[in-house]
């Protein structure tokens, strides 16, 4: 960490960061709650789109513009379109009039609460947790973000993730073939 000068000279400090963080966090949490509680699947999908877009904005606040761009293109613009298509193809009115929550919902809530308690315990009480997140963060500019990610992926000497990249392409190929085979009428 660079203790002398949290903000490098020549860059502008971010503006109104707490306001935007809390606003986006509220949008995300409200969107998440709407995803899991709406009866209508299309409403859930639209709430999820809102959450994803707010998350892309949070990535921009974390100085990760490339991940934000990928999130908007792939997640909000690709995966959610896929979800909406499937919802419209298979949605039947019967599903809306049925019970929305299954018979084990108390167990689910208890399990989630236990997990939440675990998170709170890790983040606040253990010394390891408290030491993990010191105050103050650097604010590097984002002018070279894409280039640096590309260096990590593709550079001959410094890149470590080329193999993972190739495996990811193979994974996508398998997923394409799998989806086509699954959804065909006759194999």
């Amino acid at each position, binding site marked *: 960490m660079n203790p002398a000068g949290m903000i490098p000279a020549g860059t502008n400090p971010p503006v109104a960061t707490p306001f935007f963080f809390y606003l986006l966090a509220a949008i995300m949490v409200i969107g998440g709650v709407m995803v899991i509680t709406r009866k209508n699947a299309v409403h859930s999908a*639209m709430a999820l789109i809102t959450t994803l877009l707010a998350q892309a904005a949070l990535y921009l606040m974390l100085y990760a513009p490339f991940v934000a761009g990928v999130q908007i293109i792939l997640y909000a613009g690709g995966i959610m379109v896929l979800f*909406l*298509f499937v919802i419209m193809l298979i949605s039947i009115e019967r599903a809306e009039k049925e019970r929305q929550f299954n018979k084990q919902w108390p167990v689910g809530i208890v399990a989630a609460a236990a997990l939440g308690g675990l998170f709170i315990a890790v983040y606040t009480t253990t010394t390891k947790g408290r030491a993990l997140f010191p105050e103050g963060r650097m604010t590097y500019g984002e002018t070279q973000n894409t280039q640096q990610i590309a260096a990590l992926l593709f550079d001959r000497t410094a890149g470590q993730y080329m193999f993972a990249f190739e495996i990811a392409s193979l994974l996508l190929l398998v997923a394409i073939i799998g989806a086509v085979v699954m959804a065909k009428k006759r194999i």
Partner: protein
Amino acid sequence: MHALMQYIQSYLDSDKTPGGAGNIFWATVYILLVFAGLSVAVIAMNWLERKILAHMQVRLGPMRVGPHGLLQPIADAIKLLLKEDIIPAEADAVVFWIAPFIVVLAAFTVFVVVPFGPTHAITDMNIGILFMLGVSSLSVLGIVTAGWASNSHYPLIGALRSSAQMVSYEVAMGLAVVSVILMTSLNDQSTGTLSMIGIVQAQLAQQEWFIFKFFPLGLIGFGIFAIAMVAETNRAPFDLPEAESELTAGFHTEYSGFRWSLFFLAEYSAMIAVSSIAVTLWLGGWLRPFPNLLVAPPWDLVFSLFPAITFLLLAAMCFYNTARMPKHPLFKVQTIGLAGFGVVLGLIGLILFLPAVRLRVNDIFWFSAKVAGFMYLYIWYRGTFPRYRFDQLMKVGWKVLLPTGLALLVLTAFVGMRTELWAELQGVWRP
């Protein structure tokens, strides 16, 4: 107060965009200017489309409402605002209401990174072109939800067809764009850039518009993008999902009045946005013709006179048509209106002769002129080509444009790296 003036003044000397300089006041000013410019452009496009289509079809188009129909778009806007707002029964009211806003949001947010000049963008994101492609793909969501929420057959089929078409042609657009990004990395000490301003500066540094680079690869990439962008915005000849004789206006059938005008606004804004992408990536953005070749002082002066001369020509056309107006007392108001319009255009032209204005407006003018050329191309396509059937449309998208785009990408990479590849094959390349 003095601090405020200082804050406002401090930006004017910097060489970055308002977003890059962190100056909120000027960013807001730029945003408002872009909004105003877009609205004027959409209104002008409405009139131009009807007049140009009419003249291509050997008829006159709107002539009654203002002189030569110049007030027709305003009459249309008033009509749309005053129309009854109908929501179909059983339609999902919330989603029905949100859908036009999603499309407008996607169409307008794109303009945050469009570069009208080296510092005349609202902001210059590191991922400029990625942001534009991503946000313009959000309009698919709006279209799908619009068709779904209408609770009616024609809109649903139109929405599904329209979104399938847009998603297919986005892939071809992406491949053409990636081939250009490869070309930006061929500067002398550059690593390539996704930023819109960086792409135009790469063209300036390499002294070649990317449409002419590695001839014919740049041209093919431009062709792929030009075709894909017409399909992306659901315009003729790819407008089956919203053609009247086929699907009674497709996904926006059930939308009336103001909501329909939002879709219309979003469609024309999207057209301008993808044209801006094409202009920035292939046609050199805000660069005037031959910025490196013809760089001696008289050429700078000559090229900087173009905006003023354009407006004076338009004013001359107005005056000529005023002289040709029928000499009937019922036409007096129209004649005076047209003459007044001509005077306004002439005044703008004269203002553009002033050196202070000339220097600032130069980049914006060249960018807007190139985008206007693309708008004319859109209207020309609509007046010329017959409509594609939907299966032909999908065939073109997946079986013609996508393989061509892939081959183009590989070829561009090979040609761009030919010296390094050859050196490596000979065993002499050192990383």
